[in-house]
């Protein structure tokens, strides 16, 4: 499992070689963890009611993913094969606990809203999947790129879904440190004699699934390589 593929090529690679760019770019579209591999979808559905939560969640996943990939990659020649899944799990679990503690100390409100979903990063299939499939067989450098690629692939879907849901569900947009900004004029709303009403259905989890479905639809129909028979 832990054979070093990159040892075969002794010549140094540049930082943004074709291979590294592929590591970064592929998970954003062609092998996106959420829309194509359909991994880690539970948290994507649960915490995308507000942009603010999605941003913090994405940063947390990105942190756990990069650190996890680097640690496992550094230890790849030391980890005994028979307990490698346990070792990966311990590494991911401790990183997640650290993230949870830091959020509790510095972002108590958001930590409360994300509630159990920060803890559930441990079971996020994307992270364990990347550790097992990539970091265990590659050097730390490429592992960082792989982690950033997949983390961003997860993040952009979360951000898009949360922006759509917050705009149509709450008529507002929220960013960390700014709170919720309601940009629609108050007299547009039916309650004050206007014509507009927030769509409460958007706040409920099923609409997250529908929005993710629409993203998958657009992505698959615009990319030849993804069209199945």
């Amino acid at each position, binding site marked *: 499992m832990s054979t070093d593929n990159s040892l075969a090529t002794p010549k140094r690679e540049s930082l943004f070689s074709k291979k590294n760019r592929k590591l970064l770019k592929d998970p954003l579209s062609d092998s996106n963890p959420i829309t194509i591999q359909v991994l880690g979808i539970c948290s994507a559905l649960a915490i995308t009611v507000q942009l603010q939560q999605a941003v913090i969640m994405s940063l947390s996943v990105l942190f756990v993913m990069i650190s996890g990939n680097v640690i496992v990659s*550094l230890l790849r020649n030391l980890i*005994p094969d028979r*307990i490698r899944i346990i*070792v990966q799990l*311990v590494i991911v679990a401790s990183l997640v606990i650290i993230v949870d*503690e830091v959020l*509790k*100390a510095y972002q108590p409100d958001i930590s409360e809203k994300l*509630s159990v979903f920060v803890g559930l990063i441990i079971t996020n299939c994307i992270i364990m999947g990347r550790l097992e499939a990539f970091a265990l067989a590659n050097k730390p450098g490429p592992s960082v790129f792989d982690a950033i690629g997949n983390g961003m692939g997860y993040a952009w879907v979360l951000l898009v879904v949360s922006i759509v849901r917050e705009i149509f569900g709450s008529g507002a947009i929220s960013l960390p440190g700014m709170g919720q900004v309601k940009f629609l004029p108050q007299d547009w709303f039916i309650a004050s004699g206007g014509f507009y009403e927030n769509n409460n259905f958007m706040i409920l989890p099923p609409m997250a699934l529908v929005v993710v479905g629409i993203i998958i639809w657009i992505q698959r129909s615009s990319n030849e390589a993804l069209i199945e028979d």
Partner: protein
Amino acid sequence: MITTFFKQTLTAVKSVFRIFDMAINKNNTGYTFLFSIIMVLIVGTALAYTSLSLKPLQKKNAADKKMVDILGAIGVTTTRENAKTDFPIYVKERLSIDSEGTVLNNSSGNVDPADSSDPFNLDVKKDYRSKKPASELSFPLYVCESDLGDKVYVIPVVGSGLWGPIWGFVALESDMNTIYGAKFDHKTETPGLGAEIKDNEFSDKFKGQKLREASPYFTIIKGGRKIEDMHSVDGITGGTITSVGVGEMIDRTISIYQRYFMSLTNSSAN
């Protein structure tokens, strides 16, 4: 200069790792055990360090949150930032009583987190976990003033939900029988089901309800509650165990504070 130093360190680290790689058989049982032991030691130290160094900040956050929740139970909305200044405006007196209803301590004004005699610093969650008999514990009571100038008693309640602890604050009007407001929270209840005890939609149902004369003082009912029933509210669909937990903690806690309220009514009757 810095880059050469960085490169040298990197080669050094790499060579150390390479020595490991050559010298050991990774599938040896002894090595597997050794690896696990070292891993657990490192991880344990790192986590203990993180937890200890962040504890003071988390404690402060928890205290702010407690103030926000107490004020929430009497219908005052505030933020974490303003909690410290708003709290003494509404909460006039903080008492601690024993299980017989005698007042042990009281304080007022600003909360001093270091003062262990301040009833605000009593940790009811810890007391609940310790499973000590009520006679060995003391219980905090917050005497607040509503916007109309009436006395409102806020009682902290702690209990067990389905997955973990649940807690909250129940505010009683000056008759010590009518519920003025309530606010609940939880640690790990299921989002969308038991976790909804946290929402105002649930806690607002408590407003105006009355306590019974004897235990069960208050109940949460699963299905078939009569509208004219003044001593209960509807539970949450799909959150039965959490709802039952809410009812249990209110009943258990009120039965302790009842003795203090009894002594209050007796003394005012004389």
